[in-house]
């Protein structure tokens, strides 16, 4: 005897799960893409930021 009820349950949960997984991945990609862009921006500005800190240290050391 065919268990149609179970079959529908398996198909519904399966297809929803596939969509849920890939939507979640989509959200994470968008979220991390922003973070990575900030990280890369900071990386690109690193010499300038380091220069600022050196300036602060010099100022503190020499009053």
């Amino acid at each position, binding site marked *: 005897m*065919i*268990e*149609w009820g*179970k*079959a529908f*349950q*398996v*198909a519904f*949960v*399966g*297809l929803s*799960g*596939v*969509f*849920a*997984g*890939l*939507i*979640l*991945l*989509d959200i*994470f*990609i*968008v979220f*991390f*893409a922003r973070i*990575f862009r900030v*990280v*890369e921006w900071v990386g690109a500005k690193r010499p300038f930021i380091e220069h600022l800190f050196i300036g602060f240290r010099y100022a503190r050391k020499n009053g």
Partner: protein
Amino acid sequence: MDLLLDMFQKTGFPQITWGNVLMWIISMVFLFLAVRKEYEPLLLVPISFGILLANIPMAEFMKENNFLWVFYHFAIARWDLLPPIIFMGVGAMTDFGPCIANPKTLLLGAAAQFGVYVTFFGAIFLGFSIPEAASIGIIGGADGPTTIFLTSKLASHLLGANAVAAYSYMAMVPIIQPPIMRLLTTKAERMIRMKQMRSVSRLEKIGFAVVATLVVCMLAPDAAPLMGMFMLGNLFRECGVVTRLSNAAQNELINIVTIFLAVCVGATMSADVFLKPQSLFIFFLGLVAFSFSTVGGLLLAKFMNLFLKDKINPLIGSAGVSAVPMAARVSQVVARADDKHNFILMHAMGPNVAGVIGTALAAGLFLNMLK
């Protein structure tokens, strides 16, 4: 004379059956398709020879403790080693850049699993049990290793037919998909040009490998061997500091494993197992699965266009079946038939690689519910 007769009786010749002969013919047809037509030759050559070996009377390659049985039993049926290793190689060959640059294409990879579930019901309707139907349905994902992985766990007696159907239809994607693509899209839709994608940094690609592993493996732990190895291979490729490992995964390792996997799959197709009406049903259902997966991807792309400012070419939806990169190439060919200067190949690679993740997820969820 008695000695000669006795010796003759111990050879394979008196044991030949019509089933064996028919399987030899089937083996030769696959060999012809592989050599002459170049349909997935890397797989169909060893598969066809495996079929030949399995149907030599008295040779008994698949008898317990014999040569191919050992590979099949330990590396596929019992421990499922080979499909995840192949996935590692595929991961090392995959560029997730298009998918990261345009993450909404992930949805097309999910929609292209529609055929998996339509076929699941079709198989149940034709009298297969639920686990058998799941293993047949996954053919619609157009992913050979995933089909083998799931079938060996849920319905190992269907392994040969399912794997051969999956690989045969994967080879026939350029024949199956274009008529459906033209039927479901207008010329104006096929001529939609998509914006050039942004470049994706190495950091993003490395991050994607880690995040995708965590998300998919936690959502469908049963798919973890496939996804874990897939993303490990991809990490080898993207991190840029283990070129030797990346090269090994995408060349030597995947080639060696493919030989044994394909020969063993072919060797499961002995006449007594394969020559049943259910094998014909599986081939028919495989075609249904591929067609509906194509339809699912196309229709979701059209539906998304109702809401998107920058329209997507619906042809990239059909690339959501994970036959990488064949399905994406088919999208490009169909698009160029209407507009010679329309290049959607890289856009189609997004849903194409998303389809690999989608199929692995679908297999993991089937296993979760039916194991």
